[in-house]
């Protein structure tokens, strides 16, 4: 029972689930997408990225790259949200909500790949 592997798996799955939780719901209704969930998704995604540092294998490299993609998309979603609400003052119109949610959808896809890689790695170990 390897504590390091437990933590590693925990954060990767948590990142994917939080992301999914934010994504789910109609794409153009802002009240269905909670900003705190986006916040949590970003934080856990960053932590998961840092955990993937320093692995020199090919699988490790792909893992890290999917995490970076997910981070990028989520941060883009957060920035879009902040610009819409604070900078331009237009508030969360359906169009902007759709942009935010679709960006998080992209991040979700990367997170799913990450989870798949995790499963494949685990199965390969066979123990």
């Amino acid at each position, binding site marked *: 029972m390897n504590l390091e592997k437990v933590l590693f798996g925990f954060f990767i799955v948590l990142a994917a689930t939080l992301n999914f939780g934010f994504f789910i719901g109609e794409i153009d209704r802002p009240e269905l997408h909670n900003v*705190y969930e986006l*916040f949590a998704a970003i*934080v856990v995604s*960053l932590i998961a990225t840092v*955990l993937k*540092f*320093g692995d*020199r294998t090919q699988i490790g490299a792909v893992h890290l790259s999917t995490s970076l993609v997910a981070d990028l998309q989520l941060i883009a979603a957060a920035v879009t949200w*902040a610009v819409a609400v*604070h900078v331009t003052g237009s508030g969360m119109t359906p169009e902007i909500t759709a942009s935010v949610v679709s960006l998080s959808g992209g991040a979700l896809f990367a997170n799913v790949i990450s989870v798949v890689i995790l499963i494949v790695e685990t199965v390969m170990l066979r123990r």
Partner: protein
Amino acid sequence: MNSVFFLVLRRMRAPLIALIVAYAVSVLGMSLVPGVNADGTPAPSMSIFHAFYFISYTATTIGFGEIPTAFSEAQRMWATVCIYLTVITWSYMILTILALVQDKAFQQTLVASRFARRVKHLRAPFYVICGCGETGSLICRTLDTLGHDFVIVEKDEYRVQELDLEDFKTDIPTLTADASLPANLLVAGLRHPKCRGVLALTNNEECNLAVAITVRLLNPQVPVLARARTPLVAGNMASFGTDHIINGYERFAEYLALAVSEPEDFRLVEILTGLPGTPLPEVHRPPHGHWIVCGYGSFGKAVIRHLAPMGITSTVVDPDEDGPPTSRSLRGLGTEASTLIDAGIMEARGIVAASDDDINNLSIAMTAKELNPNVFVVTRQNQSANGVLFDTFDADFRMVPTRIVAQECIAILATPLLARFLAGIRNTDETWSKAVSSRVEAICDGLVPVVWDVRIEKTAAPAACEAMKKGLRFCVGDLMRDNANRDERFPAMVLMIERAGKDIVLPDDDFLLESGDALLLAGQHRVRPALELTMQNMHALEYVLTGNDAQGGWLWRWLFAPQSKTAAH
């Protein structure tokens, strides 16, 4: 570089996660704690965006102030918690970075990867020198003077730091590692296309043996010169085909025997194989007769073995009473007068202080000189630190193992033609050698001359080749004119010309040169680049041959005005 990057990332994981968590908790808190309006009524909390902005400039200790409006007390309370949390986390991260940078293992990785990168980017032919003690440094300095590139692999850290103080012409890539490990040799460029040779010069012959085997196996085309101390290891090295095995003791003993039997030949060999730029050695004339050898180690054995065929009988003085069956052996160090008298110092013609302790050797030499002032004293100096003592004592012949090995290596590396010339010397008579030595000494101003070779072919001597293609012939004397003032000669001479496998020794001044000739020259250091200029630059060559100091357009004049060519001769 990759491994360094990954190392940094791994070490930084904990601080980075701590930082992310601290930020997350602070921002979340700030976005939940209710604010207050200017008139005291409660207001909703900050948005996540504003919270993030606030925490950013608070954590980095910039501190703009409370935005967008003054904080409520609850917000201020939470802000205090945030400040301590985030600032401490930032400090933790900075300290981790500092500790990482100072970590020895990290620095080693950094240095090693930098070294590997520099070796990979080497574009000129280079030598790999394993072991940079006294011998190694002598060779490095000479190679540097001759303009060759090299890479150093040395085990001792302090030695490597001392190398930094040496004044080399270029920055030499140096690796602190054990050369007997194949991985280190590979990183130092064993399989690099421009690797020209490997020199195994460490103090440990087993290590040299390992280096030789590694080179033979991993890259057989690269020549390897290895230093051996005992005949056993030398035989071992020869068995798998080491290109050159250098045994300082054997070589010195050979020279000593040559000096006894053919002193003029020996003098010429000495002048030509010395380390360039050092003062000319004085003339040695060891006598025939009976000799005493103090110390029967590898050196003592080699000396007796080489002197015996010259008809020199010997008595051995050894602490273990060791000795060859053909000589009388005495027990003792040789440092006391009684032992020496017993050994026959009064009738002996020469004495060799061959032990491995410098002070003993000096003592033996001084005692011998006191007892018999006419005896020829040969001393062995083991450490260069004692050089000043040996300089002052001024024995008739001083053997410094490191210097001999260095000279041998340089002779092999720098000029292969020299080996042929030296082999030819053995077949000549004494008067010839004496004449040549005087000529060389005359041009060399008291210092050992530089000996180099140059071939008249397209890359090394383009102008000369061009001229020959046009049908112009010039002779040795022409080439030896100083290209600054053609009425003077360079302080150098042509020792030998190799043409299609045949050697022409000491050509006359009017010997005509042909394309493809290889010339062996000896002269002062400044002549080499100057001669290169003559051979490579059309204007210089034209000036030297005809005396015309023309600018552009001379090519046409030269081609279409053949009468000016012969006029200057």
